[in-house]
């Protein structure tokens, strides 16, 4: 598969007054053309920080290292002006909060058109015509009328569709969706996911989907990357991951996911560790039923356990057995 985005050894830390927080630790991953990559993990495991760091959208207290090759450009070394050209045009974002991500002072048509005028230099008329097409593309009914409405007149699902329309306005190569369905109710979620799948089919946009919901990942992703405490815990194609989870953390997440025939959900004991101190051992060890002396003294390296299936664990496998 042709690599569209090649991230290697990405580390992010925040130097704050209360000490240093290590949000992401030597993370590497690849995104192929037309691929949907799911990034999964609990709150605070570094999913969003990873994505924001790619386009330098983090606050100035963040210290980012590593490389992220997008075509010929290393995003992490690119000057701000180059990044501004890439943001919204080559790589665009959809955020979690559709309710507050639109400017209340302008109609949605103006806001969609704004991106077009900024990047493609369209005239006011062309931009507003294209905005109607885009709203139609994201399946908003009666787009000619909706473009003239203000954000407060739209429902949450509609606003998220508008955000997606804005993100798709310049036909980007990569769409990064940060928990796009979390703030929406379940029926609307399904509609948004259908839309994203359709976008991939029709426009060939590669999608990085950040979520803590394995159901969403199972629904749409091709490949899944499980993160824990700023590190990659496991990475595999989606079917492989669901059928043969190797990392005890992944298995914990799957156990906490409602399925037919299972009455009681299993929770993972304990909480995500504070990232102010990067542990020099397996970060999951304090919560792991398989942890032993080795887990508590060394950092597990990524190992390939099956074709295309990587895991960072000393004791991988299903049900504690060796794979």
């Amino acid at each position, binding site marked *: 598969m042709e690599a569209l985005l090649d991230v290697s050894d990405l580390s992010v830390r925040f130097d704050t007054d209360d000490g240093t927080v290590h949000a992401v630790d030597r993370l590497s991953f690849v995104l192929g053309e037309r691929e949907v990559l799911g990034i999964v993990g609990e709150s605070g495991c570094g999913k969003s920080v990873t994505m924001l760091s790619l386009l330098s959208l983090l606050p100035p207290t963040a210290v980012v290292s590593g490389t992220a090759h997008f075509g010929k450009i290393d995003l992490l070394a690119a000057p701000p002006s180059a990044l501004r050209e890439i*943001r919204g045009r080559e790589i665009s974002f959809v955020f979690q909060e559709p309710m507050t991500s639109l400017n209340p002072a302008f109609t949605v048509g103006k806001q969609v058109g704004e991106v077009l005028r900024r990047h493609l230099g369209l005239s006011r008329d062309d931009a507003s015509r294209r905005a109607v097409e885009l709203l139609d593309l994201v399946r908003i009914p009666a787009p000619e009328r909706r473009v003239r409405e203000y954000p407060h007149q739209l429902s949450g699902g509609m606003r998220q569709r508008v955000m997606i329309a*804005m993100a798709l306005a310049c036909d980007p190569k990569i769409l990064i969706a940060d928990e796009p369905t979390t703030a929406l109710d379940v029926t609307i979620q399904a509609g948004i996911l259908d839309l994203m799948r359709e976008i991939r089919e029709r426009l060939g946009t590669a999608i990085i989907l950040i979520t803590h919901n394995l159901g969403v990942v199972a629904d749409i992703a091709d490949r899944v990357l499980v993160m824990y405490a700023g590190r990659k815990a496991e990475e595999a194609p989606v079917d492989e991951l669901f059928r043969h989870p190797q990392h005890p953390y992944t298995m914990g997440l799957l156990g906490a996911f409602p399925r037919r025939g299972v009455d009681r959900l299993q929770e993972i004991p304990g909480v995500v560790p504070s990232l102010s101190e990067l542990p020099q051992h397996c970060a999951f060890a304090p919560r792991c039923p398989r942890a032993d002396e080795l887990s508590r003294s060394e950092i597990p390296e990524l190992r390939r356990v099956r074709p295309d299936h990587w895991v960072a664990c000393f004791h991988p496998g299903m049900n504690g057995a060796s794979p």
Partner: protein
Amino acid sequence: MSYVDTAAADVLSPRARRRRLMRRRFVRRPLALIGLGVATAFTLIAFLAPVVAPYSPSETDFNAVLAQPSADHPLGTDELGRDILSRVMWGTRASMQAGVLATVLAMVIAVPIGLVAGYYRGWIDPVITRVTDVLLAFPFLILAVGLAAILGPSLLNATIALGVAAAPGLIRVARGETLALREEDYVNAAIANGAGDARIIGRHIVPNMASTLLVQATVTIPAAIIGEAVLSFLGLGVQPPTPSWGVMLSDAQSYLSQAPRLAIYPGLAIFFCSLSFNLLGDGLRDVLDPRTTR
């Protein structure tokens, strides 16, 4: 998938609907309506003074010096036999001019400075904030009097002095709004879509603080009107014989025991004019506040 189309029957455009809502909210506030009415009346008088005033403000009638109110002179005359009603009407011009222009000047100074401080922060923010704090330590009128004294007495200089003196308060408001607005999700979304600083400030921050600034303006206008009267009273503003409420009050001092109305009428004019703008500002603040439900 299908959405219930609630807006289909509504023929009004969203903008018109929003305006109608605002208007309805405003109409429900009697004090705001009175404020609007009186402020409009003063504005009209300022523009139409040459037409509506019965006499020229400097026309003297030595047969009626310090005359009691009569059919010829509804509010009486002053020590030179000038018609008080006409002078109050002409005085509205100086007051409104100073009030409005000083406010515009204050906005022009304060908004860009507040935006820069709030948006870029860094080293420039503390510098601007400290300087503003120092200036705010002086009462508004003291600052205005000091500046007017430096600039020299004239209506234009008084207006400049008032505008500059009103700027620090507005800088603080503009900076605070900018700080809050730049943390909004839609600003982050705009940055993620490749918007540069100018676009973010111009399209996202300024439009969203416009209502706050409008309310501030309606509060600054009466302060500047009173300020103009004070400066003119002290001889730092409008120079006699040009009529101004402050000048009239100043002249009235010597005749306070014989003809208190010389001071009462311009005083009432100042009172009602500034009160009307304050009421209007309160009303606007309530109406434009999205948390208002009435």
